[in-house]
């Protein structure tokens, strides 16, 4: 039938993962991401893939570890409390330099919190999640179309750098429906000679392991890994600039709040206030350079977040606190209104923030 389909954000992620060649999904249901698992449960058996509902999140992430070790594309998805459970596995994946895609459709926290949308796992996603020195590539979609395109991108980056890519979205993006066009994904052929695929007695065996008994060697591994992270920081930063050409107030928001920010910017411009938006698409690597450059041009920044203020710390670091940065937030499953954002933009325009 038609080229476009009407999809929930969660379904778009699932379908895009299949297009990206993912044939292994392991997960455990949790609201508001359950449609990803439900979609995979329906689709995977029809295309020769594997859908497995694990006995827990911990089991699921370790199944991901197993498949990732064979070099196959593999994913899991969850929502905030479930990602906490997967944190140990994510650290092990990083320690073993394994590629995978992890989806977090965030809900309000901490603890069990609630089932309504949130962005309060920014710290968890960008500052580690599990233990040890490591990074994950964190992608923040702000439309159903981007849920699909960034899933495909996420698999590619994971393979390219042998690391975890995380899709960090929220309950609203997961549940809302928008038209999507799904195109065939370009699947790049990266070197996977490290994978455990059976030696057939023809090569030296590969070993997937995060245990290192010699401190000197473990130090070396960490240094090498951070050389790789530096390459990611240099090459993979993604962001969107919206009405920033003449902007005097820069709103900084990702995901669903960036959409609200755009409405607020239109309202501000109607009042003659020159506002614009920088929307980080990669939360790690964080778009530091464009923010620092903006700091030389604007009067101030407004961070719009569905958290108590997490990304704002990275904005302050990136802008080296050259200009005031204020927070506009709602938490606990609540979503900021464009009017609330507008108020902060007006304050920032007067230079009265912080």
């Amino acid at each position, binding site marked *: *039938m*038609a080229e*476009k*389909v*009407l*999809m*929930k954000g969660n*379904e778009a992620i699932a*379908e895009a993962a299949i297009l990206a060649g993912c044939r292994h999904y392991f997960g455990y249901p949790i*609201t*508001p991401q359950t*449609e990803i698992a*439900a*979609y995979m449960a*329906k689709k995977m058996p029809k295309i020769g893939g594997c859908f497995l509902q694990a006995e827990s999140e911990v089991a699921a992430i370790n199944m991901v570890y197993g498949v990732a070790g064979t070099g196959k594309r593999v994913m899991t998805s969850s929502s905030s409390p479930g990602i906490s459970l997967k944190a140990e596995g994510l650290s092990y994946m990083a320690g073993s330099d394994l590629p995978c895609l992890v989806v977090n459709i965030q809900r*309000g926290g901490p603890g069990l*919190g*609630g*089932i*309504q949308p949130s962005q309060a796992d920014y710290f968890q996603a960008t500052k580690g999640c599990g233990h040890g020195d490591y990074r994950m590539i964190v992608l923040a979609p702000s439309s159903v179309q981007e849920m699909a395109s960034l899933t495909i991108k996420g698999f590619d980056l994971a393979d390219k750098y042998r690391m975890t890519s995380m899709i960090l979205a929220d*309950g*609203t993006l997961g*549940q*809302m*429906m*928008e*038209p999507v066009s799904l195109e065939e994904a370009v699947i790049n052929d990266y070197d996977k000679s490290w994978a455990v695929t059976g030696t057939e007695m023809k090569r030296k065996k590969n070993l997937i392991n995060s245990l290192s008994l010699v401190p000197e060697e473990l130090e070396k591994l960490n240094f090498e890994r951070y050389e790789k992270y530096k390459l990611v920081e240099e090459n993979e930063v993604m962001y969107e600039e919206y009405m920033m050409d003449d902007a005097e107030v820069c709103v900084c928001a990702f995901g*669903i709040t960036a*959409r*609200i920010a755009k409405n607020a910017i239109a309202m501000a411009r109607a009042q003659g206030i020159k506002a614009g938006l920088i929307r980080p698409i990669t939360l790690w690597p964080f778009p530091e350079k464009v923010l620092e450059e903006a700091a030389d041009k604007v009067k101030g920044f407004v961070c719009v977040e569905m958290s108590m203020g997490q990304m704002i710390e990275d904005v302050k670091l990136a802008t080296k606190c050259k200009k005031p940065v204020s927070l506009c937030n709602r938490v*606990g*499953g609540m*979503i900021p209104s464009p009017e609330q954002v507008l108020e902060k933009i007006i304050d920032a325009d007067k230079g009265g923030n912080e």
Partner: protein
Amino acid sequence: MLFYNTRVSFLERGISVKRLTLFAGHYGSGKTNIAVNYAMMLKKQGFDVVVADLDIVNPYFRTKDSEDELKKMDIELISSQFANSNLDLPSLPQEMYRTVQDKSKYAVMDIGGDDAGAVALGRFAPFIKDENNYDMVFVVNFFRPLSRTAEEAFEIMKEIEAASKLKFTSIVNNSNLGDLTTVKDILSTETEAEKLVALSGLPLKMTSVKESLYNELNDKTNNLFCLALQNKIF
């Protein structure tokens, strides 16, 4: 406001409105939106109607979002006390039994998506069958990824019937692409809708469209239903 393309009420057209109208289908097919609009249409035509939200699956985008609009029209909404809350508890209130037992009122029932959502309907099925005054409507959007064809939709239909212990009696073609829907899009789904009618042996009760497309489609489609109320946050 136009609701039906003949501009006359169901009664004037000689179509009998069943006491219970149940909307079920694939999740995201538009059941909730149609249920709310359908109840409002019945109310305007003088029916004493309540809306019952039997969705135990989906915690977001529910009939509860339209509570104020329903209240303004003096339409009672029976839904879980936990709807739109932070608690994901698949429960139904005891008042739900009124919809099947109080035969003095008409009821529009919004059933949860897929077979999983229709399970909740099962416990009311014996009452509904006994009274035998219901229309169970299958809502389909051929732009949804798992119901792109009549065959796929028919499969979902069978799964829902097995879970709910009730048989469908008619079909609504609610094919749309949200804000981007064009008249052409809707017309392009007519073949699949006809195929589904043939496969299931059930009549096409209506084709539902958003208000902005209503006039243009009015002379091209039979039994067009206008979805005047659209709850949209973003």
